[in-house]
């Protein structure tokens, strides 16, 4: 069963991106002002989440249902966003 050595070796490829635990804060322009997210979580992902949250608060105002808090409940992640004077603080918590 020498082939089992092949099976037991660990993959050397690039790591999978773990869903992070932490929070980050955006100013009204969408710039990140503070973050407790691990550095391993790509900045592009953080920007994407931030942009979506800010645009959702904005579009909700335009639809005449202004919101101050958003909670996206995914099977493997909970995203909570609170509006902060045009910006937002966003919490990420994997399940």
């Amino acid at each position: 069963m020498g082939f089992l050595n092949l099976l037991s070796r660990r993959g050397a490829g690039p790591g999978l991106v773990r869903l992070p635990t932490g929070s980050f804060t955006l100013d009204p322009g969408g710039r990140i002002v503070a973050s407790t997210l691990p550095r391993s979580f790509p900045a592009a992902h953080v920007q994407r989440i931030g942009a979506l949250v800010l645009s959702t608060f904005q579009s909700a105002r335009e639809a005449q249902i202004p919101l101050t808090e958003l909670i996206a409940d995914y099977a493997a992640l909970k995203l909570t966003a609170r509006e902060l004077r045009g910006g937002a603080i966003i919490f990420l918590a994997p399940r």
Partner: protein
Amino acid sequence: MSTRHKILLLDDDHELVEVYREMLRRLPSQPEIFTATSGARAIALLDSQPFSLLISDLNMPKMDGLQVLTIVRRKFPQLRTAVMTSVVDAQFRTRAYAMGIDLFLEKPNTGQEVSFFVDCIESLLDRETDTGGFRGVQSKSLVDIIQLECLSQSSSVLKVTNGSFAGKVWFKNGDLIDAESQDLKGEIAFRRILSWKTGNFEILPAEPERNRTIFNSYQGLLLESAQALDEAKGQPAGGDGAAGSAAAVSPLATLARFNGVEFVISVSGDDSKFESWSSENPEPISKWVRQTMRRFRELGEGFQAGELNQLEGLGPQCHVAMVSKANADLCVGFHRSLSQDLVRDTMSKIVTQWAS
């Protein structure tokens, strides 16, 4: 005509792919084995012909296994999927199961594990690709799973998820001792869980300290639940005057009978059609709901965070909760005085009714 199963193996390691191919060739059902070393190639192969099973690694360059599974679950919902990986991490296991995979295995390290792997794959292939059933270790009916746990004198926790709903059933030495689903507990929760036709299940470790709330035998409970389901099926829709008049009312109005509900809007996913109840400005809200739900679904797919169960918004004028089901979105507006917990509880009842 050949009826051999077709298995697609996806792993970026060429040598490993060959080893797996040899193992799987020895399966009693003698399936045809196809291989791919990149996600793009695997998806192209799946597009080109029907397969019975995809076995995917997780850790791969460019497109990782979770990204591949996200696409595969959407494009080929009937395809059985298994993950075989050396990434030993509970988070990835949870995320893979959240996507609806059938099997999550660590790469085998011993002869016994190889044998177990081969048995599991053969068992997966044996399952008929019906439209119902529960996706978990194997596709079985929920009654089968419960009977198996009881007959094998197991102590375990059976976690069942059905869309945005989740329930748990506790077993102790083969006895069914407790159940819980949303706000329900005990036998009522068990009956609720048993009424679900499809979903995912997972066997979790036993919780010996769990208090017993169910004292009936599992056979009795299964029988009672089956009778209740049969009776529910047999009831004529709108059989009496009251039900008949209710049927004449908008279906959304029946969803709005819960305390605190201010408006209800249902939005079709394909076009700009929507229905609304009691909303003052349904058109802009329906557009916002469709756009917001689509964007958050895409965000979840981008991070492989699993299905978007619910999106909630709290505001100074009203609170909203949104869910998707069968290519439609439902948005319910609640009075701003309702607490977040109450919004969530009420929404779960509304969604149950909407789904039925």
